[in-house]
Structure formats: structure tokens, C-alpha cells
């Protein structure tokens, strides 16, 4: 048998070696660049997240603090002012009974409101928000959303001012029962969002559960 000398395959046409090497090098380069970008923008993103949270807390405490201390349209306050207002009037504490952080609005040494973090299941993913309770535990200061994945334009409308404003001053029932009830046939205290029933229900379930938890904790003590 005449053994042919094997034809020399150019490196770039090798069936396995070159493609694998190409992918490895390309992947390393690209993921390295992304990791670097992520690292560089990390602090900026964390700062945006913290700012959003501080702004939301101030929004809930604004009416109790008063228009002279905090402007009524919290969304228009510039970032550095948000930070200084937050530093002056909000304290972050840890509660062992609910096993999480919570926030206290403090004016002239005494608490004017409590803000708790609320988590729940939305239609498309986890929803995170804040709920404000007045110091006596009998009324809601309001509620707001930090994170959700609801449909933009439909469920996403829960972030609109008119929807959130409905919950300001809502009474917390002393007996058992839901604090938030959507209006149907004359009964109820707030309006749901037209065309976003599931999201609206997710919101009411989440916050009603949170309110019941808060009721229990305010009675037993936050420490």
C-alpha cells in the first residue's frame, strides 16, 4: 500500500483545534470586557439603587414631615438634596421580630412614621415595595414600589401617582380583615387598575399581608 504523506491542513481550517481556540479566546476577551464594565459601573448602579430607595422612603414620610421640610413632589428633588434630607430625618434600624431592616422617620427627636420593606409575588416576578405606617399604627402613610416586572402600560401603572395616592391615610382595621379592598358594587376603599386585575390583586394581597404582619409587630414591639 502506498501511504500518502498527509496533506498539511492550514491552521485556520483545522476542524476542531482552531474553532475551539477561537471561541475560548473570543469568550475570554468579551467576558473580560463585560466584567470590567460591570465593575466600573458597579458603584454608580448601587448609588442609583440607594437613591431610589431613599427617595421612596421620603415620599412616604413627606406628609408627616411637612411641606416646609420636604417638598411635596419628592420625584423632583435633586439627588444630593434627597441624600441630605434622608440623613437628617430617617433612621435605619433592625427589628428582631420581623428579622429585617426598617426605617423610622424622626422629627425633633420623636418618631413620625415607620417604613417597612414589603416583598410579594407579582404577575411576572417578585415585587418589592415599601409601606409607611403612622406611629400609632392605625393608619397607612402610603405605599410605593421599588422593583417589579409588571407589564409596562398596564400593571406597570401601579407606579402612577394617582394609584399610590389612594393608599395615603387609609385606616388599618383593628379587627381582622383586609385593609385594602378594591371597589366593586359599592364596597371597598381603593380602585384597582383597569385591564390589570392580576397585578392589582397581587398588590393588595402583598400589602394586606404586610399590614397584618405590621399589626402584630406593633403590638408585640419592634425590638
Amino acid at each position, binding site marked *: 500500500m502506498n501511504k500518502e504523506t498527509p496533506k498539511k491542513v492550514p491552521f*485556520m481550517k483545522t476542524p476542531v483545534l482552531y*474553532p475551539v481556540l477561537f471561541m475560548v479566546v*473570543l469568550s475570554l476577551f468579551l467576558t473580560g*470586557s*463585560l466584567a470590567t*464594565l460591570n465593575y466600573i459601573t458597579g458603584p454608580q448602579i448601587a448609588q442609583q439603587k440607594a437613591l431610589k430607595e431613599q427617595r421612596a422612603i421620603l415620599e412616604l414620610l413627606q406628609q408627616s414631615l411637612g411641606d416646609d421640610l420636604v417638598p411635596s413632589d419628592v420625584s423632583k428633588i435633586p439627588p444630593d438634596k434627597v441624600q441630605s434630607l434622608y440623613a437628617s430625618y430617617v433612621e435605619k434600624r433592625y427589628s428582631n421580630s420581623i428579622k429585617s431592616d426598617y426605617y423610622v422617620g424622626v422629627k425633633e427627636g420623636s418618631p413620625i412614621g415607620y417604613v417597612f420593606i414589603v416583598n410579594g409575588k407579582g404577575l411576572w416576578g417578585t415585587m418589592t415595595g415599601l409601606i409607611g405606617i403612622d406611629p400609632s399604627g392605625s393608619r397607612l402613610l402610603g405605599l410605593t414600589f421599588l422593583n417589579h*416586572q409588571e407589564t*409596562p402600560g398596564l400593571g*406597570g401603572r401601579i407606579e402612577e401617582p394617582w394609584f399610590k395616592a389612594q393608599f395615603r391615610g387609609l385606616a388599618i382595621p383593628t379587627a381582622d380583615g383586609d385593609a385594602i379592598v378594591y371597589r366593586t358594587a359599592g364596597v371597598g376603599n381603593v380602585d384597582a387598575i383597569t*385591564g390589570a386585575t392580576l397585578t392589582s390583586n397581587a398588590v393588595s394581597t402583598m400589602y394586606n399581608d404586610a399590614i397584618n404582619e405590621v399589626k402584630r409587630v406593633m403590638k408585640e414591639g419592634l425590638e
Partner: protein
Amino acid sequence: MKAGTKKIFLSGLWEDNPVFRQVLGICSSLAVTNLMLNSLVMGLGLVFVTAFSSFTISLLRKYTPRHIRMMVQTLIISVFVIIVDIFLKAYVPTVSAALGPYVGLIITNCIIMGRCEAFAQNNPPVPAFLDGIASGLGYTAVLLFIAFFRELLGFGSVFGIQILGDNWVNWTLMIMPPGAFFMLGTMIWITNSRFPVKSQMAKGGQAK
């Protein structure tokens, strides 16, 4: 070069428009067009990703083995989409929150892969970059056109500015998926029957 550029843009915006001629990128055309602002940002994000992905893939085209080229394209496209996502989260968080999951979905938009396969693989980097921009702009124009009607009829507003008064009863159907299908279908029908391009006429398409 000028004639080439003009041809690229004419093709991307009208003759070979990715949405109503090639019927690509339909999922996002249906999903984000309920609001004009979402459509605009989505469109701009897509222009960026398509242009830079095409550019990069074109740069690598002589070194990329044929049988793994799709893996390479997907890898490069996803890198640019993540760059857009990080950029929005860091510097324009309100828009990032409004677009949320849709930014990640840009990776799945067939327009980008379509242009990379059809154009970037076989053309030099700068024309590929321009082709990416042209296809992206063609997509954005279609999105804005559909969103204009959906937002106006469904919310009574344009870019968030209320146009129709309180007497207008919102056509909620327009901002839900069926409304999207109706608008998109109508648009594809009108553009292809009223304004067919040469390739469609040669195939025996109805030309009025």
C-alpha cells in the same frame, strides 16, 4: 461610496425593511409598541446593538470558522445587549425600569442575527455598521408608527402627553396584544399591497 451608503439606507428603511418586508423582529414590535417612549428607547437600543454587532462580526469574518459562526454571532450580540442594559441601569434608571425585561429580549430579536448572517458575514466593517444602523432605524420607524396609533387610541396620549380629552373612552384593546396584531397586520398589508417593491412585483404580486 456615497451611492453604496444611500442604497444601504434605502434598503434598511423601506425596500427591505426588517419588519414589514422581511417580517423579522415581530415579537418586540408587538410587545413594546403600547407606548411611544418605550418604542423609541427599544429602537435606539436595537440600532446600537445591530450596528456594533454587525461591525464586530464583519471585522472577524475572515477568521471565524463557518460552522461555528452562529455561536460567535450570538456571543457578540449578547455582549452588546448587556452593555446597553448596564448603561441604562447606571445612567438612566427611570428608562431602564420602564423597559425592564425588554432590554434583555433584544438578544432574541431576529433582525440582528438576520443582518449579521445576510450582510455582515460578507461585507466590510464600515458598510456593515451602516447597514446595522439602517435596519435598526427601519425597525424604529415601524415601531413608532404602530405605537403612535396604539398609544393614541389606547391611552389618548402621545409620548405621555395627553392629546385626547376626557370624553375619549380608551380603546383598551389597542394596548393589549390583539391590538398589536391588528396594527402590525394592517401595516404589513398596506405596505405590501399599496407599495410593493420590484422583487415582489416580479414574483407576480398585486400591483395597483
